[in-house]
């Protein structure tokens, strides 16, 4: 009896893995294509696109495209710029947006529903359509830096960071998550005399692993893939991010192999960030032993 049970159990397990693997095949091929193509010559890479060879390490393989990519563009600088801008924005965004979300869900202030609706409405504004007005705005903003007061934010890191810190989606993420948290916890803390800030920091945030991870990865993706905005506000190479750098490879005839090598290189930080955050998805409310 026990043997049969363990057999069906094993069979089930195999089926489960088969399903998982089958689906994995469907999702992994862009990555395979990118990495494999980065090892091929332009001509072969394009010729391979009509068959499964596109996803296989076949033919004349070399790391030439990587050397070429580094020669063509300051890859390290672009990656640094993007990681710096993205990292800073993600951190500030998590702080600012989680506080706002906390306020909308747990603090009962007048007008919060109207303000929240307004913020949610901003989700709808496609960035492309406000880029020009925003450009005109930031080009006239003041800043106090090492050289004292200066006007205009162009050609800097701040112009790539500050406008992107707060956004409706991230606030909304926190709001929806916080709504699911047990309200008794907060009430209990209030009764014990904790300040709102203490509740935010000690009670709510420790329970928010999954949403922090989700918000962080989504924000990271948005920031890391920035193209239009840095293109119009940054003129100096010193501040250019990776996606603008990608344009270095689209000459009159694109250098396909180097494009793939460059893309492989710039995908590494995103992948690393996602893998690190993965743990937080599982570190759930469940593990804290809170009852819903």
């Amino acid at each position, binding site marked *: 009896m026990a043997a049969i049970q363990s057999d069906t159990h094993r069979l089930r397990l195999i089926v489960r893995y088969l399903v998982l693997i089958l689906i994995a095949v469907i999702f992994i091929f862009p990555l395979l294509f990118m990495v494999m193509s980065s090892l091929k010559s332009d001509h072969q890479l394009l*010729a391979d696109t009509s068959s499964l060879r596109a996803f296989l390490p076949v033919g004349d393989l070399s790391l030439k495209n990587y050397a070429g990519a580094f020669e063509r563009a300051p890859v390290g600088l672009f990656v640094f710029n993007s990681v710096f801008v993205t990292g800073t924005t993600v951190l500030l965004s998590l702080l600012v947006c989680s506080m706002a979300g906390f306020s909308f869900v747990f603090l009962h202030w007048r007008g919060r529903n109207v303000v929240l609706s307004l913020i949610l409405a901003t989700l709808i504004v496609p960035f492309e359509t406000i880029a020009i007005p925003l450009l*005109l705005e930031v*080009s006239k903003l003041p800043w106090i830096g090492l050289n004292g007061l200066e006007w*205009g934010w162009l050609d800097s890191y701040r112009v790539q960071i500050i406008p992107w810190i707060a956004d409706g989606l991230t606030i909304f993420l926190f709001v929806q998550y916080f709504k699911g948290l047990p309200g008794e916890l907060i009430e209990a803390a209030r009764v014990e005399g904790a300040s709102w800030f203490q509740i935010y920091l000690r009670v709510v945030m420790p329970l928010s692993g999954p949403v922090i991870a989700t918000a962080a990865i989504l924000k990271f993706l948005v920031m890391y893939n920035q193209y239009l905005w840095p293109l*119009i506000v940054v003129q*100096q190479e010193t501040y250019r991010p990776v996606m603008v750098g990608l*344009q270095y490879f689209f000459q*009159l005839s694109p250098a396909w192999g180097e494009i793939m090598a460059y893309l492989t290189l710039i995908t590494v930080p995103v992948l690393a960030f996602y893998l690190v955050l993965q743990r937080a998805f599982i570190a759930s409310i469940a593990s804290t032993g809170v009852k819903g």
Partner: protein
Amino acid sequence: MKMLNLTAGALIAATGFSSAAFAQTTLTMWYHGAGNKVESALINQIIDDFNASQSDWKVELESFPQNSYNDSVTAAALAGNLPDILDMDGPIMPNWAWSGYLQPLPIDAAQFKDFLPGTKGIYDGKLYSIGLWDAAVALYARKSTMEELGLRTPTLDKPWSKDEFMAAMKAAKESGKFDAAIDLGMSDKGEWYPYAFLPFLQSFGGDLIDRTDYQSADGVLNGDAALAWGDWWQSMFKNGYAPGTSEDPADHENGFIDGKYAFSWNGNWNAVKTMAKVEDVEFLPAPDFGNGSTIGGGSWQFGISAASKHADGAADFIKFATQDKYLAAFSDAIGLIPATKSAAQMTENYKEGGPLAVFFGLSQAQAKKRPVTPGYVVESKVFQKAAADIADGADVADTLDAAVDQIDADIKRNDGYKTH
């Protein structure tokens, strides 16, 4: 020793105003060559030479990727952040000049009398920009294919007629050896369309806009000649002679080289690369569809921004950069057509008897500029869409009428693009 150096340094600092290094005024310059190693090396060489050649000016370069260059410049112009010297693609110049971002070159036009017409950016009677090179488009073919299909080799004096061209398409298709007769580059949906295909329309007797006053496209882009062009254009795709708008970049880049296409309508910037892979490639002139054969002219050119306070210095640099030796150097490095005959003689490819000399002749004899008007920026986009739609099977007359309406409405909205 260290002590001495320090003193010397202090001395120079104290008397610095008389020293050359301190008197140099910085000129900022933008260029579209980021990511192009060869081109960057060349432009840097010119700048270094210029900075060393005199003591008044010091040029500092910022390079941008070509693909997004216009967007970068437009944004910078909006934000009031333009440099002293900038380069620009020929046909966009009138728009920037009209918008007040450029000033006419303070250089005597006689200086450039030997330059190819396509390299001179003249708008409203004034010279705004000057190029070191021009580009040209030709019909790429294999000598072996031409012989096999029994086709006459067209020349500048006697290009193919429409019938001859269509007979060549038919012969290539019916030979059964090719996926399609010709690669027109339909996958490259951008400025390539007006640059490469507008000349066909002109050869039919139509145009993008009435060039007498640039106020309307009516009767020109939807007249009988244009309708004839549209029908012919559509037939190229309907008959399967050319891959349509859904052609993928792989086929466009490898197709001719791998022998999938018998012909390719392609720019001279791909000539060197193709010669390396296709031994018997020939570059043939554009066919004559009735009104002479025409190709597009006008490539990248240097100009001075209106905001520049040092136009004299910028002009000095432009004069310096347009010396024959630099024209020749650019041509040798990136395969473009040098702006002057004398420079052409100094190059590998364009000197008499050189493998690409035909392009110099093409550029001189056939190049016709895209409409020189600020509205071109819009008109080119309208043409792009019309050419794509007709290729995809849209009704020719309706499409061209709509294009005319759109162009005319745009001109009206901009008060006729009149200069102020």
